[in-house]
């Protein structure tokens, strides 16, 4: 507890009047609440924040907030956010989406967003399923999950490891949280936003409709026993040996400076550019 001046914003100030279409019980409700709590705690004026998303259940978040939102096409949230943040470094830019949007159709952008290290906070709600299209296997689905008509025998493919790949690609901040602990999630989102560069937050966010068995996650997840490391090699070992259910802590914090393209003082005029063509 710290005795500071009264809060300027309440979590509710960051919510729009639009009622979510998510299924009751969906983990994404928690994420929305955690984001709004985090923004309130950071006391960011809503007009100074933007939330960018692609397509999917979790990509509906921007419209449920009262900040500036952009709801684009499937898989392309990260490039939109990259352009926005580079053009408008004064804004706080969050990216929200799901495992299919981020790691399948948007996989290449995920790699390069980690690598480029623009100062963004990427919150991925991972439910290991495509919810908007009636429950197909996603990149993070276990190989033997037989719940989809598209892959009735299971995918037979090992799941994508977002945090391992994120680390290897250069993400500057990596954390895993569970939607069953919204307050801790808010705390970690605050840290992620504050940390310079590209911050990756994986949220285990169960799908009540297509993966009802994920209700067990709340009992399976455990708070990670050790705090974050700034040593990528140690973080890699830790991420590659965990079972995906160590949550609630920041796992890695890097110190790479965020990407900002160099540009000279804007003293130059267009006339100077034109002069180079004159004979």
């Amino acid at each position, binding site marked *: 507890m710290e005795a500071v001046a009264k809060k300027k914003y309440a979590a509710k100030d960051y919510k*729009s009047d*639009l009622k979510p279409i998510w299924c009751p019980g969906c983990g994404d409700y928690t994420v929305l609440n955690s984001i709004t709590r985090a923004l309130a705690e950071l006391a960011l*004026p*809503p*007009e*100074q924040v*933007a939330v*960018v998303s692609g397509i999917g259940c979790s990509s509906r978040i*921007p*419209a449920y*907030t*009262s*900040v*500036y*939102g*952009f*709801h*684009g*096409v499937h*898989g*392309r949230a*990260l*490039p*939109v*956010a*990259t*352009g*926005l*943040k*580079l*053009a*408008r470094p*004064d*804004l706080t830019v969050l990216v929200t989406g799901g495992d299919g949007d981020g790691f399948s159709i948007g996989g*290449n*952008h995920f*790699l*390069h967003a980690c690598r480029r290290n623009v100062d963004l906070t990427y919150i991925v709600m991972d439910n290991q399923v495509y919810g908007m299209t009636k429950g197909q296997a996603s990149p993070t689905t276990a190989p033997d999950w037989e719940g989809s008509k598209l892959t009735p025998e299971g995918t037979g493919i090992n799941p994508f490891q977002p945090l391992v790949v994120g680390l290897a690609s250069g993400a500057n901040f990596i954390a895993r949280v569970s939607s069953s602990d919204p307050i801790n999630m808010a705390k970690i989102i605050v840290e992620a936003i504050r940390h310079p560069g590209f911050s990756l937050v994986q949220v285990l966010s169960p799908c009540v409709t297509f993966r009802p068995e994920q209700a067990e996650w709340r009992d399976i997840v455990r708070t990670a026993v050790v705090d974050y490391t700034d040593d990528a090699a140690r973080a890699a070992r830790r991420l590659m040996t965990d079972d995906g259910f160590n949550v609630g802590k920041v796992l890695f914090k890097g110190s790479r400076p965020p990407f900002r*393209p*160099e*540009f*000279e*003082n*804007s003293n*130059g*005029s*267009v006339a*100077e*550019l*034109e002069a180079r*063509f*004159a*004979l």
Partner: protein
Amino acid sequence: MTAKSVSLVIAGSGGAGVVTAGSLLLDAAAKAGWYALMSRSSGPQIRGGEAAAMLRFATGPVMSHDDSFHLLMAIDWDNITRFSAEIPLTGNSLIVGDPAHGEAPAGLLKNSPRQAALAMTDIAGKIENGRPNMVALGAIAALIGLPAGAMQAVVEDNLKRKGQAAIEASMTAFHAGVAAAADLPAIPKLPAVAADSGPRWSITGNEATGLGVIRGGVRFVAAYPITPATEVLEWLAPSLAKVGGMLVQAEDELASINQIIGASYGGVPAMTATSGPGLSLMIESLGLAVAAEVPLVVVDVMRVGPSTGIATKSEQSDLNIAVYGLHGDAPHIVVAANSVSDCLFTTQWAVHLAEAMQVPALVLTDQAMGQARAIVPKPAELAFIGQRLTATAAVEGERYKRYAMTGSGVSPMAIPGMPGLTHTADGLEHNEFGTPSSQASDHHAQMDKRSRKLTQFNYGDHWADIEDSEVGAGDTAIITWGSSTGPAREALDRYSAAGGKARLISVRLIAPVQPEKMAAALQGMRRVLVVEQSHSGQFYRMLRAFYDLPVETRSLHQGGPLAFGPGQILEQLTAWSA
């Protein structure tokens, strides 16, 4: 024998310095006060492949290459026949080759051009650090009447860093070439022109495109390299930095289009440049920019398609994808530049249109004009600056409507940072607030609005360049677009010089179509010749779909990479009127 223009090719294999020689010649011609157009062609090798520089010089602006070349200067013959279709020669043409490299290949001799020898290797060998390409330049200069002093100045500029000895070696070889030219048969010479023949620029189409982007107000560019658009981006990278903008290299074209959507949503005018394969990847997100009403500009420097096609050569075959490629009903702007210098005008105009209507604008240029360098009259200053209608202060108690219904269809746009006007821009169909909606009424209202923006805009006279023969328009019109405009212009000049009457309509605003303006332009026209460089006649079919054309309408179309010669078009006009 003096002429209005002279055309020549310098060809040779890797290391022969063909491209450098072409550039030096162009620069020297500029110093001499001439106008010029230079295109290049090369083999598929990254380094060391055969190359050809095609140049046309004139005392007035050059719009097009000629039907044939007066001179082929072959520094060697290695694989030169790959260019034979691109280097039309006649019985009056002169091939100059180096005896050290043997005889001219038969593939070049179809029309029995004159032949002569120039011992470039031997002559250069007698000069310390002398190079055959400089001997060739000397001979060319003497043949076409280019003053040696102009070359001296250019060589001094170019070799300054290599020192005085290098300059002297080059100029000694050059003068040896001038002397040796005395033994060569004549080709047309251009009259020497005073060096102050009006303000001129030396610029490529891709550079002009980049400059148009900056003049229009763009300050954010995302880039993914692709031939032949890369030079637009390469020129923009340092240039944007000088005016306070930035260029970001993206991981692919999907990223570059979406980065500029993000930047533009943030209030900074934005663009990217690509070619057909990249445009294909961007199409989905262009639809997003239509739906979310995010202004942006995408330049497509067209190359031969489909698929990877012929990456280094030109074709006007992306018209269909540019106009019709987007799924759904997605009104957007498609404009086309019709010359090297028009790349500047059209791109700057495109930024203005995109910003004014909050819509994506596609600019079609092509490899032929993009990678060509021209000496052109200094382009006019243009008043077009991107002007976006932004929202003003929030109204107390009123929720901001991002997609408010307005008469013009353009809704004031709130930019992140503006208090009280937060909203979510959406690619999902939405109501006036931006809230997703699957209601028919919202869909129809928003479609009407998005379409209204484009149909109610005043495009002025820029929709097309319309030119008549000096003696009048007559009853025959050529309708063309893009790169085909150059040869069509020259065809019209020649037709007119022979007493013919015709009108040229070069359409710059491809979409939205302008039926009323076209009808006015076709008033009194009994015949229309449609000219385009596409195998399937894409432009002709588009004109047929949207415009009332006379019964006597013919289509002159051919696939790339060969450009039309003015004579091809003239032939059609003459045959028709006969």
